[in-house]
């Protein structure tokens, strides 16, 4: 049983104000998103149910759902939604809010991946997949590495595992660029 | 009573509120404005609609007179080309507008202050967007300043 006091009525309106989320209230709950989503069968809430939670203001439930992390941003739902709701962009917004509020399910390393990726790019200007995989594995579940040994070996053999990561000339300047405006704004 | 007079002309004090005089044709744009109403679309209250049977009825003098007598902008709304209830009144309106635009330009009146829009009876939403857009543009321009005192301009125009 859900009590109305558990809902955050203003939340959907805050989300609606975000870029790409304008049409969330137009959802007619037809389920096309869930039907077209290759991952919905692995989700605890189908995308359609997330839209419903969102609209009804059940913030906690939506943000702590596994769904938003299972979303691989393939944009199938967005392309097929009869109400032209940009569901993928909504999922992004929820991911960001979840990370900000530390609400994501701990057993999912995606936020870790995202953060590691963020860190690497911030310091180097470019991603370094090898480093990313290692750091992510170490921070989430080192055993992933074992599972990866075989493919890792393949990659090594075929020269697809870069050991000298790439950099841009002046990462500092890039950091300034991507941090200053947010202070300015 | 006096405080009523105040409301009746909000432009006197406070921040600048543009005054737009609109001429809507009876068959398309006036209906569209009605539709906007029945659909409860909200738009800027700065517009005053004068109903004419056809945009072709709008005499260029009306527009100049409105500008001379204190309007900050004038909007004409007619049926889409080919949709005129009187077959081609909107074309006639268009031709006059082209000429008038040049005149206004010579008078130093910004072109955003005068607009001709085709709005069909189905386009209630377009009424909202057009009015809001025009009000914002005119607001940005500020009150209409004529090269000559309004009275004189009025003389010229009359």
């Amino acid at each position: 049983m859900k009590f109305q006091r558990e809902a955050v009525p203003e939340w959907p309106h805050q989300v609606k104000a975000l870029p790409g989320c304008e049409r969330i209230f137009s959802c007619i709950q037809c389920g096309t998103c869930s039907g077209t989503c290759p991952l919905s069968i692995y989700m605890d809430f189908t995308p359609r149910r997330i839209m419903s939670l969102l609209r009804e203001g059940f913030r906690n439930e939506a943000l702590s759902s596994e769904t938003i992390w299972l979303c691989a941003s393939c944009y199938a739902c967005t392309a097929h939604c009869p109400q032209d709701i940009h569901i993928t962009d909504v999922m992004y917004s929820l991911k960001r809010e979840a990370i900000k509020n530390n609400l994501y399910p701990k057993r999912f390393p995606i936020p870790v991946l995202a953060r590691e990726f963020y860190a690497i790019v911030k310091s180097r200007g470019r991603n370094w997949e090898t480093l990313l995989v290692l750091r992510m594995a170490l921070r989430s579940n080192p055993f992933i590495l074992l599972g990866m040994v075989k493919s890792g070996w393949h990659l090594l053999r075929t020269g697809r595992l870069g050991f000298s990561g790439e950099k841009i000339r002046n990462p500092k300047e890039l950091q300034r660029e991507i941090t200053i405006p947010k202070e300015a704004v | 009573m006096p405080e009523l007079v105040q409301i009746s002309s909000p432009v006197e004090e406070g921040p600048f509120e543009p005054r737009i005089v609109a001429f809507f044709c009876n068959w398309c744009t006036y209906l569209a404005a009605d539709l906007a109403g029945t659909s409860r679309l909200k738009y800027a209250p700065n517009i005053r609609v004068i109903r004419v049977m056809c945009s072709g009825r709008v005499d260029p003098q009306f527009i100049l007179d409105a500008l001379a007598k204190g309007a900050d902008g004038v909007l004409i709304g007619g049926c889409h080309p080919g949709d005129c209830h009187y077959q081609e009144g909107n074309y006639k309106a268009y031709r006059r507008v082209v000429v008038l635009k040049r005149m206004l330009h010579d008078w130093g009146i910004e072109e955003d202050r005068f607009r001709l829009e085709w709005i069909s009876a189905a386009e209630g939403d377009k009424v909202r967007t057009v009015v809001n857009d025009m009000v914002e543009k005119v607001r940005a321009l500020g009150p209409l300043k004529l090269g000559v005192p309004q009275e004189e301009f009025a003389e010229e125009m009359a």
Partner: protein
Amino acid sequence: MSNSNGTVRIGVYICHCGSNIGAVVNCPAVAEYAAGLPHVAVSRDYKYMCSDPGQELIIQDIREHKLDRVVVASCSPLLHEHTFREALAHAGLNSFFLQMVNIREHDSWVHSDHAAATAKAQDLVRAAVRRVVLHKPLERRQVDIDASVLVVGGGIAGIHAALTLANAGKKVYLVEREPSIGGHMAKFDKTFPTMDCAACILTPKMTQVRSHKNITLWTLSEVSQVSGYVGNYEVKVKRWPRYILEDACIGCQECIEACVFKQGKTEDEFNEKLSKRKPIYIPFPQAVPQMVLIDPDNCIQFKSGRCKKTCVEACGERKAIRFDQQEAIETIKVGAIILATGFKTFDAKRIPDYGYGVYPNVYTSLEVERLVNASGPTAGEIVLRDGSTPKAVGIIHCVGSRDERTNRHCSRVCCMYSLKLAHLIKEHTGAEVFNFYIDMRTPGKGFEEFYQQLLNEGVHMVRGRVAEVADWALDPSEEGKLVLRVEDTLAGFARRIPVDMVVLSVGLEPQEDADEVRRLFNISCSPGGFFLERHPKLAPVSTFTDGIFLAGCCQGPKDIPDTVAQAGAAAAEALALIDAGHVEMEPNTAHVIEEECSGCKTCLPMCPYSAITFKEEEHHAWINEVLCKGCGTCVAACPSGSIVQNLFEDEEIYEEIKGVLNYA
């Protein structure tokens, strides 16, 4: 300035319209403000001006306060101008001494800032007060009405409207584009929810049309030109050749037998291209007129000129076949026109996810209507393209409805006809039938009961919009099937459902040429593209062009009961109009002040109705007020300002301009 001796006395009335206006506009304040305006003798605000007591109020004031002008600030003049004009007339005042102010649609409903809305109302009222002072007494001109009616479109709507009028003794012209009347209804097998056979209830009406002495039926015909005005429309109708002499053909169809084509080679339009027909054919067994026609694109005689003409032999003495028949134009005069041009079904190819045109066993609902129809291509057997009977069938609702990318509207009939097809398919094949719906809409009489019946027949109802119809299999049970991927939104998980046949419940759309037709008859369209009614509630079959009425799906999606009801209503409206014998024209025509006319002839080319002529001897222009439709374009063009449009005189409009701007 005053029309009569002495000064003008104006009564101003501000309507609250319940809370519609009153909740936003401060009506008492506006009334109080108006009271202070020049010439205003009485100024009141009242809950409902359009109510009897409201009108009575005006009538009383006119008498007691000797008012000779009235301003009513309420809803759009298009709604109640007539009402208040009547009130003035009732009080013995010329009804054109009225000016209305639209403070509902143009004010209280579109603004939320109360102060600004009230200020706007005051500006508009001020303008009206200043304008009405200049109003002149005017008389409506009466013109006679031609007592005949044109009905465009021979579907069930047009048929019912035509018969209703004809039975009332009126002359009716029924124009149909196809070779037979009957429209979409003639293609259906059963009709929901009663399941009575469409043909059984439709064909009697079709034959009545054919035999009715008051109805002239023109099939293979199209309206090509409309001129004139209410009560006096002149219409040109283009009639394509049938290549058959209508009076000579007795519909024996021996010519079809005799045709050099031993069997059909051309896709049969009536059977949704599920069968083939010959170049000489009859659209369907119950066609009206019961008469063959030749399709020149496929007839050898037309293509090569070297056919044995076995059809002509078969026809023999009757000599009904005429290869030399030409296109003809008929010109008729009618007092009213009823548009019953119907709809077209959504083209399922526009939604690639459903594989229509890619997978042969994906059908549209209309195709299945033909399949289940006893007189259809399979004689009522529901079989797949390979002749086998489906064991599992999926019916997808809302195809081309409730979809931002195609049509936003709900097509209203799909839920019910999908249930009907589900029932028929189950009955004919015993297959497992799955209905995939977004919302089940069964609001009509007996509809919900029918839905209950279907539920109990064991038809699957899955609430979810199918995401895709595809041929990829994840396990042996899906091999060679069409797999529907859908979220079962009530169960809360995604499902894969393999079926043999998919039925796409396509929505209803405006006809391909709705836009040209709209222009031809000078009416408007609603946002969805269907024809626009004069008022959604109070004038649902009228248009903004007097004398032109709407019936059936051309105005919006409808089921058969609603269509027939609306057709009857349209007929009644047309009847009321022409039975009056004459119609009163609005007096807003233009006239030339001869002594002021400089004779420059600028106005002549302005008039699209050539109502303006130039009197050489007197050297001035002259306007024929019977032809003038009152657009005022010539007035705006006249350099010497010597043309005047009643109700829209220059001075009146100048006063209105000064009024809204509060210019001294």
